[in-house]
C-alpha cells in the first residue's frame, strides 16, 4: 500500500510516545465506592481482608470480577493438578492444562477439530448469541455477581449475558424442561462454599472458543469459594457422558475489580464481522 497524504519524513521525525494506560477504572460512571467490601484507612478496597458476609453469615460473592491473568493460555508452570487441585481452565482450549486434554469421545473430538479448522466462525459468540458456559466464566470482559438470600444473579458484560442461580431451596426442573442456553441452576451453601448444580442445556453448545462440545446430557457442578475480598475460586465439574468418556474438573480464578462497573454491550448494534466469514 502506498503512502497517502502524509510523508514518511514527518513520521520518522516524530517521537514515539506510546500511550501508557494506568487507570483500571472505566471512564463511564464516575468512580463510586462499593459498600460491601472492607477498606484500608486510605479508603482502598482491602483485597486481602476476609471475604465480606451476608447478614445470615454466608459469604457475599457480590462484586465485579475479572478472570485472573492465568486463565488466558495453557501455563507451563501450572502445577495445580499435581497437588490434588484441579488444573486451571483456559479460555481458548478448556483442557489445555489437563495432561491428556479433555476426555472427548471420538465424535466430539472430530467436531471440535472441524470447528477449529473452520476458524471457529460458528462460535455462537461470533454471531451475538450467548457464549458457552465456560466461555462466560473465562471471558476477558468482566462479570458482576449480585447476591440476595434467595437468588444469585450473574451479569456478564460479554454479550450482555445473564444467569440466575436459585438458592431458595427449589429443585432442578425435570427432563421435560425446555433446554436453555444457560441451563437451569440451583445453589446451596456447604460451609463457605456455594455449590451450584446446573442441567437443562441446549444441545450443540461450545464450552470454549475452540468449540469443545457441551450437550443436552450435561450436568455441571460449580463450587464457588471467595478466598478473601479480592479473590474467587470456582471449581467446575462437567459430567457430559454424551460427549466425554468421564467427568472432569477444572479451576477458574477471578479477581475483584474494586469500585468498577460493567459497561453496556449490545452486540448486534454494528455486527459486521460475519459478513467476511467463509461460507
Amino acid at each position, binding site marked *: *500500500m*502506498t*503512502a*497517502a*497524504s*502524509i510523508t*514518511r519524513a*514527518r*513520521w*520518522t521525525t*516524530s*517521537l*514515539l*510516545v*506510546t*500511550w*501508557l*494506560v*494506568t*487507570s*483500571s477504572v*472505566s*471512564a*463511564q460512571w464516575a468512580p463510586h465506592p462499593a459498600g460491601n467490601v472492607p477498606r484500608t484507612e486510605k479508603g482502598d478496597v482491602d483485597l486481602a481482608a476476609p471475604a465480606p458476609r451476608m447478614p445470615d453469615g454466608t459469604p457475599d460473592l457480590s462484586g465485579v470480577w*475479572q478472570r485472573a*491473568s492465568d486463565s*488466558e493460555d495453557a501455563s507451563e508452570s501450572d502445577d495445580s493438578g499435581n497437588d490434588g487441585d484441579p488444573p486451571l481452565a483456559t*479460555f*481458548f482450549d478448556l483442557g489445555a492444562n489437563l495432561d491428556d486434554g479433555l476426555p472427548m469421545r471420538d465424535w466430539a473430538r472430530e467436531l471440535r477439530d472441524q470447528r477449529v479448522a*473452520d*476458524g*471457529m*466462525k460458528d*462460535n455462537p*459468540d*461470533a454471531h*451475538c448469541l450467548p457464549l458457552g458456559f465456560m466461555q462466560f466464566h473465562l*471471558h*476477558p*470482559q*468482566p462479570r458482576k455477581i449480585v447476591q440476595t438470600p434467595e437468588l444469585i444473579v450473574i451479569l456478564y*458484560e*460479554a454479550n450482555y449475558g445473564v444467569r440466575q442461580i436459585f438458592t431458595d431451596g427449589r429443585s432442578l426442573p425435570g427432563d421435560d424442561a425446555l433446554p436453555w442456553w444457560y441451563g437451569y441452576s440451583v445453589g446451596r451453601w456447604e460451609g463457605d462454599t456455594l455449590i451450584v448444580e446446573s442441567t437443562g442445556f441446549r444441545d450443540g453448545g461450545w464450552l470454549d*472458543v475452540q468449540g469443545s462440545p457441551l450437550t443436552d446430557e450435561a450436568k455441571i457442578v460449580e463450587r464457588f469459594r471467595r478466598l478473601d475480598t479480592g479473590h474467587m475460586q470456582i471449581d467446575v465439574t462437567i459430567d457430559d457422558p454424551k460427549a466425554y468418556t468421564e467427568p472432569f474438573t477444572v479451576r477458574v480464578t477471578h*479477581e475483584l475489580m474494586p469500585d468498577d462497573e460493567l*459497561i453496556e*454491550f*449490545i*452486540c*448486534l*448494534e*454494528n*455486527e*459486521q*464481522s*460475519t*459478513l*467476511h*466469514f*467463509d461460507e
Partner: protein
Amino acid sequence: MRKRFAAATAVSLMCSAGSLPEADAHHAFAAEFSRDLPIEVTGTVSKVEWMNPHARFYIEATGEDGETVLWNFELTSPNVLMRRGWKRDSLKPGDKVIVSGWRARNAPHVGNAGKVMLEDGRELFTGTVTD
C-alpha cells in the same frame, strides 16, 4: 519505518502485561482475517464508530493506481478500549495514521488493526489477538 514499528511492538507488549482486561474475543481472529495477509495502510481517518461488538474506524488512503480507497478497520470492543484508556476523541476524523494489521480474507479493504500510530507518535492499544 520497520525499526520504529519494532520498537512500538515492544512497548505494546509492556502495555498489555498489567491486570487490566485484555483483548475482546467476540470472534476468533481466524474466522475473519489471515496472518498471511499482512497490511500497512497510511491515510486519514474519515469516521470512527464507537459501537459493539467491535469499534471501527475508516480511513481514506491512496490505492496503488492513485485512486482513493476507503479502508474499514476493526478494533476490539469499545468496553475494552475504554478500560485501556481510550477517550472518545482518541481517534477522530482528520487524524493522520499509519495502521498495520491483517486483511480480511473475503474483503479487500477490511482489516484488523494490529497497530495504529498517530502523527504525533502515539500508538493506540487495539486489542488484537491473533489466536
